[in-house]
């Protein structure tokens, strides 16, 4: 039963996404421009970092290549979540203007509908940008590619995407209660990826503990990346802690799922 709910949800998601992709492709030039714009927009932070490095050789003990590695990994992870679930931020608006009710009467899981609503393929821009920077940094870094490090790469990117995805769903669930507060979500999602672009050594210990044990953003790229780069964790956690990323991601998704159910149950229509 549970499995069939998941598969119908996924099927519906793919169908709705396909519809939005077809409608986007009707204006191909506009799509290309917007994707390029997305690519440039999300790369702007790295331009700022590169400008910083015109003055310095190291930031928090990390070189530009290493920072580019961190930047690339969090961009790809965040980009995956943003592509799949990025429109969750509009949920509050749906609750406010009453169009949420339309979704409720359809025989399709609500989460699939909300997540696929206005699916924006241009968000590939961020993933492409992150992947290019990641490739660039890998070509310049001298990494000791043991088997576990090779394995950790895809595990890190997918788990990171799942952790960010869980944050998007949590943020969406929160909007059932606080309809106008979609910006709070940005603090954790966009704020989170900005945080992870920089080396952990830059930040205070309290903040590091907070993003390791409370909101486990550190598992998106910091902890796995430190192992790949062969650097010690500033909090003194064991080197292989990065391998816990998939477990952490599963935990986050479970919490997000429960919050989503609770939010949906607490939903009250505006009645308009």
């Amino acid at each position, binding site marked *: 039963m549970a499995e069939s709910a998941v598969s119908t949800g996924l099927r519906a998601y793919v169908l709705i996404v396909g519809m939005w992709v077809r409608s986007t492709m009707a204006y191909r030039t*506009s799509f290309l*421009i*917007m994707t390029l*714009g997305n690519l*440039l*927009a999300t790369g*702007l*932070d790295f*331009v*700022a970092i590169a*400008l*910083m490095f*015109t*003055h*310095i*050789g*190291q*930031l*928090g003990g990390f070189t530009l290549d290493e920072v580019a590695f961190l930047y690339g990994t969090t961009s790809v992870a965040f980009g995956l979540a943003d592509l799949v679930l990025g429109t969750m931020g509009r949920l509050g608006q749906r609750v406010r203007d009453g169009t949420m009710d339309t979704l409720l009467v359809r025989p399709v899981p609500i989460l699939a509908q909300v997540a696929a609503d206005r699916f924006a393929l241009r968000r590939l821009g961020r993933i492409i940008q992150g992947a290019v920077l990641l490739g660039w940094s890998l070509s310049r870094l001298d990494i000791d590619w043991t088997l576990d490090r090779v394995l950790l790469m895809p595990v890190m990117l997918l788990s990171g995407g799942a952790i960010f995805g869980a944050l998007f769903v949590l943020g969406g669930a929160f909007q059932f209660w*606080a*309809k*106008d*507060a*979609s*910006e*709070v979500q*940005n*603090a*954790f999602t966009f*704020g989170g990826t*900005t*945080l992870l672009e*920089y080396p952990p*050594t*830059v*930040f*205070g210990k309290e*903040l590091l503990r907070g993003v390791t044990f409370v909101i486990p953003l550190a598992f998106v790229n910091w902890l796995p990346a430190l192992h790949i780069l062969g650097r010690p964790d500033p909090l003194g956690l064991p080197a292989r802690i990065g391998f816990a990323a998939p477990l952490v991601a599963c935990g986050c998704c479970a919490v997000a799922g429960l919050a989503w159910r609770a939010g949906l149950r607490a939903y009250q229509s505006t009645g308009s």
Partner: protein
Amino acid sequence: MRLYAAVAVSGFKRYATYRVATVAGVFTNTVFGFILAYTYTALWDERPHLGGYDLDQALTFVWLGQALLAAVALMGGGFQEELQDRIRSGDIAVDLYRPVDLQSWWLATELGRALFQLLGRGVVPMGIGALVFELRLPASPLTWLWFLLSVVLAVCVGFAVRYLVSLASFWLLDGTGLSMLSGLLCLFFSGMILPLNVFPGQLGEIARALPWAAMLQVPADVFLEERRGAGLLGAFAFQAGWMVVLLAAGRVLQSVATRKVVVQGG
């Protein structure tokens, strides 16, 4: 004049209605303020006196940026989307009938909005920043006054730029791409991502001469008392100069645009 004052007051009230959104915005500004403050601390640790700022000044710059982000609309927004929508849908025809000046009307709403967001979204992040970090607050009360004047000019320059961008919808119809580009340029060249005095060489000189510099870098330098005496006058002249040029350009574009308006439908 009284009419525009009333419009500005209603702009203020309109944004004051969204209380939860304001609190949410304050929260997000504060989180970003902390992240940037840490990274700037690392940067200034490596290179003390980078760009002529000491660490305290750099941290003050971070929190000023967060405090002014919404008021000066450094990421776009405000009236822009609404005006673009009115142009696309044709509602602009109704606005043109009204016995008021289109540009002054939108500027008035924008000033009201900016005042609310300066108070509602600026004061609290700045206060939290000042509690946690050692910020360089102006020694002289006069500096506060000059800073406010500089912020008003910054809001006007920001308005003028986005008014031009919005009017482009008369030709493009879908202004989303252009708005995005304009927002990007603003974030980058206002100093929001990195203070302009840290930009290297030629790029820095160009960036400091562009209108976006008037939107964050100049008010911040006034606040940090980097601009004093003749330098202060120069700062105001720079802001006022861009304001006049861009507002005038907006008027020219507006008259060209309205000449080609064809009202569709019944």
